[in-house]
């Protein structure tokens, strides 16, 4: 964790942006709202995978994790708090700068880097767990992205991803309602045609050498204003896969 390569005015800019990213009432409110349900899926799947006890303070101590498409660090920070040695990458220099500044403010030791999974694959680095949340639906070639991500998963490692399904319901809720009616996310955030069907994801994972273990939907509960996990995969959903035996 170091900001020594950044200029002071850049750090100030990143710090201001970090306040935005991390303001739970700010522009990233939908991600903050979604986060507990996503974290629950990740924590419980990874705890089962690695045989760890979620009632301890740092269940994943001694394990490494790669967060692909980390944004401002909304998932990387919780993973670091739960004991993982976290490396987090994002294609955007700005996101990485923001995330780095915020982690330092929170006394968390996280390695941030502006990089793509393809670059990490080329270096041959491996992690016990790899996350790619809300990234798959933004890439041009899903299979190539999954192959590069899978290459970063070490032997006996785990992979967790979250994305949006391509259904009429997700067009109505995930795209039109979220962007234009509720204005949860800026208009144009998503291209519905790039949303990924569970069958397409399963096929991509298999080709990348990952064995799909579980899929679970994430849906918004109007009554409690909270996101919950459930069997409905029609809009937002998550998947957990294991590295296939060589």
């Amino acid at each position, binding site marked *: 964790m170091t900001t020594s390569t950044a200029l002071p005015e850049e750090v100030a800019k990143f710090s201001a942006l970090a*306040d935005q990213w*991390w*303001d*739970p*009432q700010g522009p990233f409110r939908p991600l*903050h*709202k979604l*986060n*507990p349900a996503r*974290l*629950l899926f990740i*924590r419980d799947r990874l705890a089962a995978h690695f045989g760890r006890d*979620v*009632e*301890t*303070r740092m269940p994943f101590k001694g394990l490494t994790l790669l967060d692909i498409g980390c944004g401002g660090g909304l998932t990387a*920070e*919780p*993973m*670091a*708090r*739960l004991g993982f040695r976290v490396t987090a990458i994002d294609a955007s220099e700005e996101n990485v700068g923001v995330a780095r500044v915020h982690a330092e*403010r*929170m*006394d968390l030791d996280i390695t941030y880097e502006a990089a793509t999974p393809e670059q990490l694959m080329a270096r041959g680095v491996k992690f016990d767990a790899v996350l790619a949340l809300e990234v798959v639906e933004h890439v041009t070639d899903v299979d190539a992205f999954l192959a590069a991500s899978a290459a970063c998963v070490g032997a006996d490692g785990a992979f967790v991803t979250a994305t949006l399904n391509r259904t009429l319901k997700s067009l109505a809720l995930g795209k039109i309602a979220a962007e234009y009616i509720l204005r949860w996310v800026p208009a144009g955030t998503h291209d519905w045609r790039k949303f990924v069907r569970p069958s397409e994801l399963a096929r991509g994972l298999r080709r990348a050498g990952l064995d799909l273990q579980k899929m679970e939907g994430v849906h918004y509960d109007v009554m409690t204003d*909270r996101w919950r996990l459930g069997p409905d995969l029609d809009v937002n959903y998550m998947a957990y896969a294991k590295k296939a035996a060589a």
Partner: protein
Amino acid sequence: MTTEQRYDVAVVGAGLVGGALACALARHGVRTIVIDRLDPRVMVAPAFDGRASAVALTSRHFLEAIGVWRHVAPGTQAMREIRISDNASPLFLHYDHADIGDQPLGYMAENRHLRVALAKEMTALPDLTVMSGVSVAGMTQTPDEVILETSGGPVRAALTVTAEGRDSQLRKLAGINVTGWDYPQVGLVATIAHARSHDGIAHERFLPAGPFAILPLKGNRASLVWTERSDTATSYMAMDDAAFLREIEERVGGFLGALTLEGPRFSYPLGLQFAQQYTKGRLVLAGDAAHGIHPIAGQGVNLGWRDAAALTEIIVDAMRLGLDIANVDSLARYERWRRADNLLMAGMTDALNRLFSNDVAPVRLARDVGLATVNKLTPLKKLFMRHAMGAVGDVPRLMRG
């Protein structure tokens, strides 16, 4: 920025609620510091707090879960029945624990015993730092943390809880207003020893100046909570022991045999207040700092422990997901959960006190008929009893036993 360690939670106020909260958090691995302006040795001195608390069944579960009950249990008295009667009226309401199962209605515990038990537990927890004899002069909030300016130096924490009681300093510093009023009444508290056994029966008598409660303590002793008009209470406080005892004898009657005074008497002003917000940024209110109610139903400390149990549950859930424990959604959940419950109890105790603290004949007749009616309506009575036991509403996990 200061370089001191950042705690997860700073609890300000190490009293019955703050101390229990600190124990509950630290027990779950939450790195906690508890700060109090008083030395614990002062708080456990017999002359510091002469009150006793009616520990509801759910509160007992909570105190058990945080390792405090085992230190207190030997000195408690199970409350098997509560007899409520109006002044010199033959009609009365009778709560018997046998109506709702074999558990007692609650336990009488002396506050000084609770304080000793909490102090013992607080020093035994590796994740708890105790800072006593330290006052808090200021509070700064940033998006990332709270910094408390204390006489022992700055303290940094992700979340600060004020459990400082009714006059919470941090609540004032945060600019959180309270709504409420003072009752023209004072609570006089004294402990008596008596010749005959109380059989674990609590009595609440509605006298014109306010309720008079005889609460059974361990051995042939009882804690008296005597609500008196503020103007006359001063003269009772000024009386010599013999005269004061005669006033007590007149109100208690002869059923406990000969009475003697044990220890000093105390007087507490009574009022109802509730904070308009339970959270502000990274500050949270708990216990009397958030709500002060009339002691008529013996619920004040029980509500505070419910706050503590609910807050612990919410913080631990957030921590185990790796979230910032002071995240807005978690704190909003605490506020929604606890405000509704506390307001309901505040309203109930206020209505009870208003109903019973007068001697207007039609009101008396109405309430006598009311008491007798409630006594005959078993389902309604059971609901009241369950409420007194703390078993109504959304009960925190730590209170389910």
